[in-house]
């Protein structure tokens, strides 16, 4: 399956055709290299007009849609990809532009508060994970085990030789 191009978004709660919506998609389950949690922004779009589906062609993509791409992790874990819709126009506080541009380090709670987006009017989410590292690490693991066995066997041989030499000396 493909999560590209961007999904079509719609909902049945539009009550006023003049309402302007803002859409946010994020992954709250990403990690920094040191293992601490961080959020990754996948989509931030404002100026969405009421329609079914919601009208995106004329909307303002502050951060264009970026498909899920969780890194391989051990142990493998699924990331949540959350889509949030707000019934408010998007006005981005300047202080958030760096994290929006970087995508990582985004803080949805403070952004919603500081941008005045109010309550979420509709939401959805899905999960996906990247199992590739698990598959890729099978071979190195086997190799390491083989090396370990080799070292162990070599040690046994050496110990045996020393033992024989010791026996020979005793003789």
């Amino acid at each position: 399956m493909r999560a590209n191009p961007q999904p079509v978004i719609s909902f049945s709660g539009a009550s006023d055709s003049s309402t302007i919506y803002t859409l946010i998609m994020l992954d709250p389950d990403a990690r920094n290299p040191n293992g601490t949690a961080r959020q990754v922004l996948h989509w931030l779009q404002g100026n969405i007009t009421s329609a079914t589906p919601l009208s995106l062609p004329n909307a303002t993509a502050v951060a264009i849609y970026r498909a899920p791409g969780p890194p391989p992790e051990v142990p493998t874990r699924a990331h949540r990809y959350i889509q949030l819709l707000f019934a408010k126009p998007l006005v981005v506080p300047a202080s958030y532009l760096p994290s929006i541009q970087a995508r990582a380090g985004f803080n949805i709670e403070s952004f919603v508060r500081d941008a005045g987006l109010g309550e979420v009017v509709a939401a959805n989410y899905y999960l996906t994970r990247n199992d590739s590292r698990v598959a890729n690490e099978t071979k190195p693991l086997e190799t390491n085990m083989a090396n370990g066995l080799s070292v162990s066997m070599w040690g046994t041989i050496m110990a045996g030789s020393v033992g024989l030499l010791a026996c020979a000396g005793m003789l």
Partner: protein
Amino acid sequence: MSSKIITAVLLLSGFGAAQTPPDFEFPSIVSTTHLNVSYPAFTTDIVPGQLLDLASEFSPIESLQYSNK
């Protein structure tokens, strides 16, 4: 019903509880309704909490960029 499912998962990390720390909480989601999300390549709309098999989409380069950003 969908909104209740979403609320439970997002607030309590229902699915990810065993694997993911509940470090994302968003109380405003309590009263939300279902948002229809439909990918052109999929035959059905996204069901809240659906596990998507997108493995073929994750190239090593993209994953590396993701982990470094």
